[in-house]
């Protein structure tokens, strides 16, 4: 086999094209890593949605709790009097069910200048009946303060929204006129879908954010979801199937909570496809650049190739040598690209998850450069190097010794 230092020396001697080609690869791969880190960060959220035994109950046909409404006069506990379900809700799991109202409110912000119009921003608000139970069901604890009580206008914030709004324990906050809330707690919710949520009393959310029917004569309170905790994922799946079949009494859509958030992550697939598409097109450009470099290297070393053939090296060894050189070049650039792309690991971002039906959820998450991202980028680099170097290596292999030396 042709010694590898023949190739490394060439890369060193022809350092300018080596540098430019490696920089090219570095940009393409770094961009790929950044885009995939964004997607992975969003995907990771669905895994932190809460204990894997949680089951989410929505109104039938609803795939987004924003568009779900379960009337509170419907006795949902009838659902889990079923003999298959009841044993799982005894002992420590008894009463581990949280009835919630989720809404997206529009908060009015004062105008930036005198005479300007006010601006608005969206706030994700969740009304809970028993905040401690809700926290336990969702696997959330408090980072600071306490859970909201039954008296007064108290709220608990996710860490992310607290940071966004610049609020701390004890601050007052006006979600809408004349509703003023006081922050009493901040959840340890980083990396979960609840990080951008404001938790308040169910009645206040229902009354003030349009989830209750206040029409005289038609008064009705609604929940958007009920989340029930079961011991494990297998029980959650079984529980969902059993309840889903009991459609004649109560019309509901029941699914494991993890599946609900995974479905919301499906919108990330669009980002992932877009990221790969962009990276592939840029890689095609990069590969042509590599081909240029390697073709130039081959044409400048035709005499070398002739000599190598005469001293006994075979065609396939010539091919392998130049392919290796191409791969080395790709690895140098790709390695630098992965290292630079890794710098975005942990950076906080705001994203959007949606399961269709026009709804969705704004989430705060951290970009994630994990093993999957690095392996994808590494494979990408090697494929670029292989495709970019093959034709020049093939051309080198086909050189006839005597013609090369003439």
């Amino acid at each position, binding site marked *: 086999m042709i010694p590898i230092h023949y190739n490394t020396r060439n890369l060193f001697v022809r350092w300018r094209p080596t540098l430019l080609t490696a920089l*090219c690869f570095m940009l393409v791969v770094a961009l790929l890593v950044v885009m995939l880190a964004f997607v992975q960060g969003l995907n990771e959220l669905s895994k932190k949605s809460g204990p894997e035994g949680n089951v989410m109950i929505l109104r*039938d046909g609803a795939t987004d709790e924003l568009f779900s409404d379960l009337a509170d*006069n419907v006795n949902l506990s009838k659902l889990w009097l079923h003999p298959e379900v009841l044993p799982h809700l005894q002992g420590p799991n008894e009463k581990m069910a949280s009835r919630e109202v989720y809404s*997206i409110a*529009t908060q009015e912000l004062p105008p930036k200048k005198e005479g300007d119009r006010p601006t608005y921003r*969206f706030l994700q608000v969740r009304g809970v009946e028993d905040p401690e139970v809700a926290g336990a069901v969702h696997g959330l604890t408090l980072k600071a303060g306490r859970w909201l009580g039954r008296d007064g206008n108290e709220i608990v914030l996710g860490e992310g929204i607290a940071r966004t709004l610049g609020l701390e324990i004890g601050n007052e906050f006006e979600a809408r006129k004349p509703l003023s809330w006081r922050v009493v707690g901040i959840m340890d919710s980083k990396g979960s879908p609840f990080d951008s949520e404001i938790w308040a009393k169910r009645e206040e959310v229902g009354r003030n954010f349009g989830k209750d029917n206040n029409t005289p004569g038609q008064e009705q309170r609604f929940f958007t979801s009920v989340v029930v905790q079961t011991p494990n994922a297998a029980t959650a799946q079984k529980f969902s199937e059993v309840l889903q079949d009991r459609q004649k009494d109560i019309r509901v859509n029941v699914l494991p909570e993890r599946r609900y958030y995974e479905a919301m992550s499906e919108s990330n697939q669009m980002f992932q496809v877009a990221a790969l598409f962009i990276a592939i*097109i840029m890689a095609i450009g990069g590969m042509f650049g590599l081909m*240029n470099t390697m073709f130039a290297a081959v044409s400048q070393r035709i005499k070398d190739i002739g000599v190598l053939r005469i001293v006994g090296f075979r065609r396939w060894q010539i091919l392998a040598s130049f392919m290796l050189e191409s791969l080395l070049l790709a690895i140098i650039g790709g390695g630098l690209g992965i290292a630079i792309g890794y710098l975005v690991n942990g950076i906080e971002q705001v994203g*959007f998850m949606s399961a269709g039906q026009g709804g969705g959820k704004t989430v705060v998450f951290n970009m994630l450069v994990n093993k999957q991202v690095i392996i994808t980028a590494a494979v990408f680099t090697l494929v670029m190097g292989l495709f970019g170097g093959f034709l020049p290596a093939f051309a080198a292999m086909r050189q006839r010794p005597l013609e090369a030396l003439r």
Partner: protein
Amino acid sequence: MKIFLLVLKNLRRNKLRSVLTAAAVIALVAIFSIIRTVVLGLDSFTEEKSGSVRVIVSDRYNIMMPFHRRYLDDIIRPGSTLHDQLKAECEFDREKHTLWHFVIFSLDKDMKDKDQQFFLLATLPDKILTMTDDLGADDVDPRAVELMRNPPRSGMPNSGIVMGELILTKLKKKVGDRFKAWAIGHRKGTALREPIEMDFEIIGAIPMSNRWNGMGFMDYAYLDKTLNAEKNEFDGRIHYGWLEFKDKATAEKAGIMIEKHLPEMKAETASTAFSRFLAPLKNVLDGIKYLLVPAIVGVMILILGNTFGITVRERFTEMAVLKVLGFSSRRILLLVLGEAILVGTLAGLLGAVVTYGLINGLGGIALPNFPPMRMPSAIFWWGPVLGVFTALAGGIAPAISACRVKVANVFATVA
């Protein structure tokens, strides 16, 4: 002219290198054009168009929450204080209004099959073609208005619907079909809250190329009557009211007047409302503008710089001979830059033409919840300009290196 001929000759000498470089530039111009089209498309939703401007009236504190229609009636009813004020100060024409109420239906009564779901927008039929962006008489037969009110086959008043071809394909329906559907979010006012059942006849189709191809329009009168009969909580309510004004300044003024008069309502221009919906995507858009686009330009510069760097180093002897023959350093610089610019320009133009033909031939770039974005004709100068810019940036260093060639050093090496 001689320099141009020399440039052409030099590029032909190593056709493979010229073709590979051009191919790389074409690929990168293609991706740049696609990205720029998407960014411009999204920006267009958040910018006011010239000419008449629409105002959306909605609930002030809740997103997508139906509000009572009487608020809109207060605005459009002649004789009401607000209407008269808008007419006097903002030249408001009450005919230039419409309303929207969104309904999700399913053909599956049990609502288990997501593929059987579709959106209908309940609105005023006679305002569909005049008050809906990007939907005009070229897209939908103007007779559809009458047919929506009096569908020919079913005979049920107001039950005609117009649907997008994309959704018709998905549901395996066609114009003339009659069917029952069940409203997912609109329920009877009974204890069991069963879904409300409605009958429809498809009386028209919206073309696949149109942004509304994924949903349909129904007569609000039919929905209103049904919700009332079924004692649904959304009876008499709408999601949005739309008003049209002559320009942005008037629309803003009208918005302030409406909000002052109706404190429960928000009245803002459509572009302002869309900007808020796009706010969660701000990071993505910033990443595209400030990371992705510069990276693409950077890769193009590197590729062109690499190619012409190799070319110049191979031709040092030739450059020395040119100098001996009387070529000035400036002419040699122009020669090398000329080669780079010619490759960049032609490849950029070819990339633009190919991408324009491919993307627009396929109907544009389709993103979920957005209309297809077609490439603007401005791409025909983006491509060449990008090619020239990157050729200059990448080719300048090799060109300077070429014009600084020292004849004595070159011939000493050769000797």
